[in-house]
Structures are given as C-alpha cells and as structure tokens.
C-alpha cells in the first residue's frame, strides 16, 4: 500500500489496543447509507517507474519552444542552486511557521525577503507574500478602501493586465466596491494624467498605476502618483520586480511616493510552469502596515536575549479575528518566496540590474530587426521595458501558428482583450534570448508574412482569373 507503513502485526496490535475488531469498525459512527462503495473514476495505482514513464512522455509531448510570450509571466534564467536548496525537505515539507522556535529557518528567510522587497519597491515594509500578482492587486484595493474610509471607488487603468482586472472584480464584487476603468492614449500606450480629471471629480480611494503596463510601456508614474495624492487618494503601484532593478521604485514616485506596491514575483526565480505556483508581493508605507493583509514576520528576542523571528501583528488575521479579520487569507506562498530570496541573493543588486537591462536591450534589438518588415510596426510611442505591442499586416493567429511550426512562440494576440487594436501582437524578449534568437525570430516572421501575402495574392489572382 503506497506510503502506508503498517504491517499485519501492527494492524492487529493497534486494533487490540483500541478494542476494535476491524478497521471498518472505526467508521461505525458514519451512517451506513452515506458510505461509499466504489471509486469508479480512479484508475488502479501505478508504481514510481510507471508514473515516471507516463509523465516523461507527457512532458516531452509538450515540446520545447523559443518563447517570446510575456503578458505577465516572464522567462528568466534560474540559477541551479535556487531550486536545489528550495526543495530541501526542511523547506519543502515544513509547515507554516506558527511554532517559531521550530521554524527559525523559514522565518529568518522571510524576514530577509521582506527586507529585499521593501528595498526593491522603495517601501518601508513588506508582507511575507500573497498568492499571485492578480490577487495581490485585489487585496491592495481592499486595503486602500479600508484605510481611506470614506470612498469605495478604485480607479483602474485599462493598461493594467486584463486578467488582473477581472480577478479584482471577482474578489471585490461582493463588498460594495466600485472599480472604474480609465482609458489609455492610443498614441503613447499610456494612461495620461491630463485625461483623468473627469474621473477625479468624485472622491475615490485609490488610483492603480502599472509600471510597466500590460503593453510593456512605461507610465508617467510621477505625475499619476501626484495626481492621486492631490485628490486625497492612495496610489497603488503594480510593478514588475525585475524592472525595478533599473526603474524608479514606487516608493519614490512623485513628491511623496506611492502608498502600496504589489506585483507578480514570478520573474524572481520562479519557473513559468504553465502559470503557477507563483507568488504575489505587497509592500507599503509604514502608516499602512496594520491594514496590510497576509503574514508578516518580525524580529524580536528570545528569553535569553538572543535575536529570533516570529509571525507578528497576528491580531489582523483570521485565526484570531475570525469575521473581523483584514482578509480571509491564511497561507502565503512560502516555498516560492524561498526560491525568490535565494535568487535575489545569488544575483545581487548588480546582477539583477544586468538581467533587467539586458532584457530591455533585447526587446529594443528585436524591434530594430523587425523594422524593415513591411507593415510591422510598434503601435505605441511610450518607452518600453522588455515587451512591446507590434502591429502586423496579417491576422495574428495565422502568423503565430506559422511561427509555432518553426518552434517559436511569437507572442500574445491582443485581440481578445483589446479588439480596437486590430492585428497586434505583444512580444517579449528577456535576457535568455541571444542575438541569433532575435535574428531567427525576425527572419521567420518575415517569411511567415511573405507566405501569407503570396497566398493572398494567389487567391486574388485566382479570383480575377475566374471572373
């Protein structure tokens, strides 16, 4: 029996101690009518060799591609040490650190993580992580409403990741919170501060500011932050942590800095892995710390005066406050944060900056290579980090399908989320791409477009012949 160590002799002795005849007797308080006969949908068990073979086949069936998709999940190199240490049993199989004396390893690591994230975002404090970037934004919206007290409106630019917006709606909709979408500039791809006045006439709790935004474009964060503050609202930054190695952190935006910074932590050492597990981060100004949801680690001393770490400010949490808690959140993403902390320690401030800057340089280099292609052009003028929206002269799905045939995942079709943009693809290049990879992309894109246009012209001439 998998993972059950009992021998026949053990079972007999244990039942004797209990005073029961059979294991089934132990279920005698369950009404007979409720007892399940069979599990028809569960196949017979496999041994480790058999399941290994099955999983290997399935993983290989999924193939390997040169990935140029970003859209909220980014491919970066992950040092070998990161996951070798993270999957040590002492991290992998440990419980939430409620018993502080038995969890100093995880607790100290989380304190180090909080320090790194607070500094990276330019904030005073950080919590020990959230589920993912999207749910972290939802929690930031709730936090802003709690601390603002008089307004339950949140201003949300359309340049925020569309799925994040949808997750925010799912999570806050039953709490009487109104989420108002702000338009973006079709020229620059930014949320323009001067276009916001009509939305600021009524009181609002917070303005959400992405950096970079979903199009990869950098927003005018200083002006946006100051505008929110001039209306007595909070500024919530939604940021890519990798970008912060080279970009002004939210804590330094505008005159006073943003109040809350959240985002997707995946770029910091977490594999793409079909979408999860990742982790969300949340950092804020000191004044808001008691409104922050999730776990927070504090440094203190033990009874001998030795420094140590504990979960602190637990009075905010559900296991103490129950229905009056700041959130129902119970877990963080401990193991993911373990990986991210080791990743940041291995790269350091200089390494992280090099990775960010190289990613930035790679998208610029790719855009340059695409420039000669007829009908291919960047649609927004705003500066980008490592991702850009590019118009194509052909249906995006057709082009992506042809690139896939060349082992290239060419980007994300924006049509589903921004139909007004027509044939536009969102392309990302990170430090993992070589100059040859970029050239290869440009060549295959050129060929794909040629093929489509020659098919089209053949079709046109065929039509003209037949008439």
């Amino acid at each position, binding site marked *: *029996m998998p*993972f059950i160590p009992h021998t026949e002799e*053990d079972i007999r002795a244990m039942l004797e101690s209990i005073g029961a005849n059979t294991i089934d007797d132990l279920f005698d*308080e*369950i*009404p007979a009518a*409720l007892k*399940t006969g069979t*599990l028809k949908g569960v196949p017979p*068990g*496999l041994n480790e060799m058999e399941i290994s073979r*099955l999983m290997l086949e*399935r993983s*290989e069936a*999924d193939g390997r591609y040169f*990935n140029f*998709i970003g859209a909220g*999940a980014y*491919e970066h190199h992950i040092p070998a*040490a990161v996951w070798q240490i993270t999957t040590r*049993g*002492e991290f992998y199989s*440990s*419980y939430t*650190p409620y018993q502080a004396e038995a*969890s*100093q*390893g995880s607790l100290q690591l989380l304190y180090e993580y909080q*320090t790194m994230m607070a500094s990276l975002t330019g904030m005073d404090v950080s919590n020990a992580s959230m589920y*993912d970037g*999207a749910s972290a934004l939802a929690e930031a919206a709730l936090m802003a409403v709690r601390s603002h007290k008089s307004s339950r409106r949140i201003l949300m630019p359309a340049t925020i990741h569309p799925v994040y917006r949808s*997750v925010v709606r799912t*999570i806050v909709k039953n709490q009487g919170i109104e989420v108002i979408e702000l338009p973006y500039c079709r020229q620059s791809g930014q949320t323009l501060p001067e276009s916001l006045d009509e939305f600021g006439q009524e009181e609002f709790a917070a303005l959400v500011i992405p950096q970079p935004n979903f199009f990869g474009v950098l927003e005018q964060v200083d002006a946006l932050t100051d505008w929110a503050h001039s209306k007595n609202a909070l500024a919530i930054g939604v940021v890519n942590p990798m970008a*912060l190695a*080279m970009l002004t952190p939210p804590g*330094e935006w505008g005159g006073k800095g943003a109040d809350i910074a959240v985002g997707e932590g995946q770029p910091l050492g977490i594999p*793409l892995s*079909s*979408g999860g597990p990742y982790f969300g981060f949340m950092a804020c100004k000191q004044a808001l710390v008691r409104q922050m949801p999730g776990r927070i680690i504090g*440094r203190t001393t033990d*009874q001998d005066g030795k420094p*140590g*770490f504990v979960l*602190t400010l637990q009075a905010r949490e*559900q296991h*103490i406050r129950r229905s*009056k*808690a700041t959130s129902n959140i*119970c*877990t963080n993403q*401990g*193991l*993911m944060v373990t990986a991210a902390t080791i990743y*940041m320690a291995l790269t350091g401030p*200089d390494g992280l900056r090099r990775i960010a800057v*190289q990613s*930035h340089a790679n998208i610029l280099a790719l855009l340059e290579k695409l420039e000669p292609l007829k009908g291919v052009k960047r649609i927004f003028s705003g*500066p980008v980090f490592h991702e850009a929206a590019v118009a194509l002269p052909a249906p995006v799905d057709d082009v992506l399908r042809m690139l*896939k045939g060349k082992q290239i995942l060419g980007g994300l079709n924006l049509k589903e989320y921004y139909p007004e943009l027509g044939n536009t693809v969102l392309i990302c290049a990170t*430090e993992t791409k070589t100059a040859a990879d970029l050239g290869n992309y440009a060549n295959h894109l050129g060929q794909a477009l040629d093929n489509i246009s020659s098919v089209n012209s053949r079709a046109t001439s065929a039509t003209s012949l037949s008439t």
Partner: protein
Amino acid sequence: MLIFEHSRPGRRNYSQSPATAAETGNIPQNLLRKRPPLLPEVSEMDAVRHYTRLSQKNFSIDTQFYPLGSCTMKYNPRACNSLAMLPPFLARHPRAPESTGQGFLACMYELQEILKDVTGMAGVSLTPMAGAQGELIGIAMIRAYHESRGDAARTEIIVPDAAHGTNPATAVMCGYKVVEISTDKEGDVDMEALKAAVGPQTAGLMLTNPSTLGVFEKNVAEMSRVVHQAGGLLYYDGANLNAILGKVKPGDMGFDVIHINLHKTFSTPHGGGGPGSAPVGVGKRLLPFMPVPVVAFEKGAYRWLAEKDIPQSIGRLSAHMGNAGVLLRAYVYVRLLGEEGMHRVAEFATLNANYLMAELSKAGFEIAYPTRRASHEFIVTLKDLKEKTGVTAMNVAKRLLDKGYHAPTTYFPLLVPECLLIEPAETESKETLDAFVASMKEILEEAHTQPEMVKGAPHTTPVRRLDDVKAARELDLVWKQT
C-alpha cells in the same frame, strides 16, 4: 547572521548574470532608479551555505513527526516533486497555445475527473490557489446562485462555533452576515440551534465534516435536509477530507459545493506556508457558476473553457490557471495511490488516530470526547493538568519540540480549554506513534516533578521562547543598514 551581514561591496556572481551591462536606451531619466536596492553582495557558495544552514533550523515532515491537528501533515512523496519539475513542464508558458500543452492538460483533466469521483460532485475547477480562496469562491458561487434566482433576501451564512477562522472571515468577504451556532456535549452541531437559525434569510451553511473536534457529524443528512428545506445551500470545508477519503463522498452527504486542500489530503508540500491549492467541486445547481478556466476534452484534444463557454462563471481567481505545479504533484500522487490506495488513506489515518487516542488515554491524558470514535484527529484537554501544576497546553507543546516532535495544534478549536488537537496521518508507523506516546508520558511526569522546567521549554531549539509582545510593539520588519 543575516544574509546582508555576509555582504561585501563589489562581490558578485559572474555566472549568474550577463557579462556586459547594456544601456538603458531612451528611457527618461526620471523613470530610472538612482540608488541600487539593498540586496546582498555574496558569492554563490556563501548564499548556498547560508540558506542550507537556515533550512537546518526548521522542523519538517522529512525530519520530524508532525501530529498537527487539522493540517494533515503526511509524507510528501519525492516522485511528485521530481515529476512535476520535469524541464518541459517548468518551461511551458501559461499563454502558450493549448496545442503545445496537451500532455500537461491531460494531467489536469484526469485530476479533475478523479477529484469529481472522490468527492461525488458534478464538476471541479482546479483554479483556487489556497483553501481560503477556494472557500471565498465557494461562498461567492452560493451568492451568485441565489442572485440568479432573484432571491436577494438571503443575507446570512451559518457557521458552527468550532469552525476554522477562515469560514467566518470568508463569509464576511462575500458580503454575508455570520450566524454562529453552538455545539452539543457530544461534539455534534446543536440541531435545535440549527433549526432555530435557518429561515428565508439563510444563504447557506459552512461545515467541516469530520468537524474540527475530530468527530463525524452524525446528523449530517438531517442538517442537509434542514438547510435545503429553508432554501439554503451547503458548503463543505475540505480541511478534514483525509478522514473520509474513499469512505464517504461529500456529494453523498448533500453538499452543494466543496473545496479540497491538495496540500493536506493530496500530499502536496506545505512549503513553510504555501503554495496551497484548493480545487472546488460543485453539485449540479452550481455548475453554471464554476470559476474559469476548467479543462475540457473535446474532439480528441484538451482545451481550457473560459468565460465564453461558462457565461455565468463567477470569474477568474488568478492571472493564469491556478497553481499548476501543485496540481501536477497532486496528479502524480493520485496515480501512485490508485483506487485501492485511495480507500486506504482514510482507513489508516483513522486507525492511527484511534490508536494514538487509546494509548494517550491509557497514559493518563484526558480525551475531550472520550465516548466518540476519533476521525483522523482527536482532542486532548490539559485543563486538569494546568489546575494541578500550572503547566499549560502551550508549555506541553513547546516541550514536545525539545523531544523532537512538532507541536500539535494548540488552543484550537476554541471550545475546548487547554486543548491539543492531534492528527497523526496515515503515513506514520506504529513505532513513531509509540515513541510519541512515551515522550508525552515523560512530559506528564515532568509537569509534576519539574513544572518550571516544562514552562521554560523549549530548551534545545535554535532559539528559546520568543517575545511576541516585543515583536508587535517594537515592529522590526526589515533589516536596516547601520
């Protein structure tokens, strides 16, 4: 020593970043960072040593027994980890076309089907990323159901007083008022209190069964009838599903919606507090409201169902599709168990719990509900010990750390004074349980002979009792360079 204290300016890992530092292009100056972030400058070996040493300061399932009630700390098979971390799985982008993820999607689809069968529900969505999120979406679906029928008068969620703290917190997050009902002497929900609480204002009941008191709610069928008759729906908190896996299906008990903690019953790692994963199962009435995406198998291929396929869906919970890597681990686990192994889980979890309860009782510990069978967990109350010796449940828990055991859950459920909630899980051997009983007996003796020593525990851990009050008063949440 903190990683920052190992840092030396100018030290870096040449293998871990590009050799040349590129230019920042045409980015305006005001958008560029002026000062580098406070990240450590350490060698690769320094980092490896530092974090390896930190890991050694943790208790974990791989090193210790965790009799941690309500948490199901069972062995996390290593194959689940290594097979979920096969390079093509890790490299797959969440927005890559479905045609490049048929192997991955096949695992997700089969996991959905297996979870449906095991829980007796009509549909399963894998997307919730933790138990609390599964709960949130479960209650949100109940709300969407009532609203879709134009039934706006239902404003209350009923929660037993023994419930997990997430239950009332979740109900409030969904805009409901919480009505707590009491527990009777036997540990069952007080049926009279339930009957008095239900009415046209009842949206639903949240229930954990077996309950957090470690007993099976004998009247669950009657409870289901009472709530349904009043027009409410039943929510099953899957925290204790391990106790009945393969024995009773929540769908057969009358539940309309359930969340399943994969990090408990399906052996995915707790990881020091996450990532969790909590698929939700729904009965027929809630099928139209399931969160997206859900995997479908049509015309020989797997694909994600989205909003356009499930138009009344409650929506999305994560930027992608939930904690895919955790789901892969759970998939490997269910395939290793198979049908027979699945039945065995509840059997041996229950055998271990009842044996441990019997042995601790013989050793002189007071059992909170001695006339009841233990489910996969049970409660010891140390009220008497505290009165006689001043030694509390917390002291005993901390003393267990000295003996090399993780502490049981303490002071939960709140109903039982000085309680230890003990759950051994099916993967522990009789020898481990016997050794644990022997240590508990020693502590009982120590409580009488050297109570001050027990109160001062732990003595052998990397730090001793930590000052929580100081931590909260003099907040030190980030390290500052001095």
